[in-house]
């Protein structure tokens, strides 16, 4: 990890400190004399141990490291720097008397970025030093950028989650109160009043769906999709979901029917999350089937897994658009049949929930008409 101070100096282009490690005083002098006129600060170390100590104190931007050192050799120093400072460690250029030998290979393997053969030629040394400082600076900039983007993304998710959460309750109240007015709970309304009310009801209902889906996406993206497994009776869950979805479906004269099968075995999954998937598939099936259709729902135990299927009577999904189906905002060309809205988020959320259960979800056109959405939860 780079120390913040080092990152700051890098970003301002002040990469000026070079640690020169050689046990030979004359060699250190030669290198220092090359560096000083270029505006570099040379920090001299006469052993591996001394180099590590000075590195910790001075936080250099680059290390010129002799391979042959008494005690700890150059390779060991380089490996130690990588261990201590990771990817943020300053680049190490080895100085070797035996260029072309195994020293070069071993130096690069130890984490060095380059090597300089002895005797040192000033122009070559400076060119390589500049190159590696430049690379290091670019890396630091990139790391900072990634960090900034990641922070911005987290802030976006948090904001989205907060906004969606605070919008949800008032919207639920608006939608619910509009329904109560419509149903004549507080007196009979005229035709025109009912018409306006229907608009309020539809708009608030659509907004509620959108807000819920945005909240889900924010939660999932923030890595907070948590599964709370429980032993559940799958048929019971489907019956409850169908009961609620039928309330909505009757406005399109559509019926949702459960196809009878042998009662599935109790299964372990997160009942709230899977209920959400079932609700979503049911509402989609109603949305894309012509009014007066029958949507069929099946739930079965198959070889220890549990399989849910929802069969609609819509136009099916064009083969070419299957890829979009389970992606974020992946709206297809297929239109709802009653003017309903679609955010293109619902199925992406379903997929993420099913996958968090190690399950799979698929969509398949039927030969005659309509589409079957099927998801399987393994045991």
């Amino acid at each position, binding site marked *: 990890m780079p120390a913040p101070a080092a990152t700051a100096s890098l970003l301002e282009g002040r990469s000026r400190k070079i640690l020169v490690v050689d046990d030979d005083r004359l060699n250190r002098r030669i290198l220092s004399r090359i560096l000083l006129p270029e505006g570099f600060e040379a920090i001299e170390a006469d052993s591996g141990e001394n180099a590590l100590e000075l590195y910790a104190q001075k936080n250099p931007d680059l290390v010129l490291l002799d391979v042959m050192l008494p005690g700890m050799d150059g390779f060991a120093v380089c490996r130690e720097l990588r261990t201590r400072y990771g990817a943020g460690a300053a680049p190490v250029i080895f100085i070797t008397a035996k260029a072309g030998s195994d020293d070069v290979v071993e130096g690069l393997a130890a984490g060095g970025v380059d090597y300089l053969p002895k005797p040192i030629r000033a122009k070559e040394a400076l060119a390589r030093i500049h190159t590696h400082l430049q690379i290091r600076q670019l890396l630091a900039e990139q790391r900072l950028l990634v960090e900034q983007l990641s922070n911005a993304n987290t802030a976006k998710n948090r904001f989205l989650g907060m906004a969606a*959460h605070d919008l*949800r*309750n*008032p*919207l*639920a*109240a*608006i*939608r*619910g*109160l509009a*329904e*109560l007015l419509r149903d004549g*709970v*507080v007196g009979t309304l005229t035709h025109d009043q009912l018409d306006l009310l229907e608009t309020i009801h539809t708009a608030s209902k659509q907004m*509620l769906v959108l807000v*819920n889906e945005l909240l889900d996406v924010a939660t999932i993206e923030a890595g907070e999709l*948590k599964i*709370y497994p429980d032993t559940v009776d799958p048929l019971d869950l489907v019956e409850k979901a169908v*009961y*609620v979805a039928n*309330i*909505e479906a009757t406005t399109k004269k559509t019926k949702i029917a459960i196809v009878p099968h042998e009662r599935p075995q109790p299964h372990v999954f*997160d009942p*709230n999350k899977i209920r959400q998937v079932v609700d979503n598939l049911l509402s989609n099936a109603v949305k894309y089937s012509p009014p007066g259709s029958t949507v069929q729902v099946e739930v079965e135990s198959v070889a220890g897994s549990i399989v849910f299927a929802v069969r609609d009577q819509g136009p099916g999904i064009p083969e070419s658009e299957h890829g979009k189906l389970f992606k974020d905002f992946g709206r297809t060309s297929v239109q709802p049949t009653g003017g309903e809205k679609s955010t293109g988020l619902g199925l992406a959320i379903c997929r993420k929930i099913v996958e968090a259960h190690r399950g799979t979800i698929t969509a398949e056109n039927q030969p005659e008409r309509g589409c079957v959405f099927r998801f399987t939860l393994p045991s």
Partner: protein
Amino acid sequence: MPFTGKILLVDDEAHIRKYVGLVVRGLGAPVIFEASSGEQALALYAQESPDLVLLDVNLPGMTGVQILSGILAQDPDALVVMLTSLANRQTIEECLRLGAASYIRKDTPKEAILAELSAIVSDSPNDPAP
């Protein structure tokens, strides 16, 4: 049989109290008491001993869990249904463990809210929970 008992409705959001209050009228002819805070809820509970409490999970000040504990301390047989907006499973599970009878999401269609509550009040007349 229409429900004519007392319901205590606890939520800090007035629009939710208004909405849920209208929905529960569908149970029959309940007498509804509203509280917007934990302190108010506990005082009303002591005064009215309602037959059913609808209790928001997320309130500023005393939390739903604290209010639930306070009500159950007054009356271990209290019938309390939690109202939730976020399906915060951990909090809900804690409430159920403490002794809440059930929970309802506020954005559930009103017919489903009513069906759930009807089942709860018809199950329970002075029948202490197992």
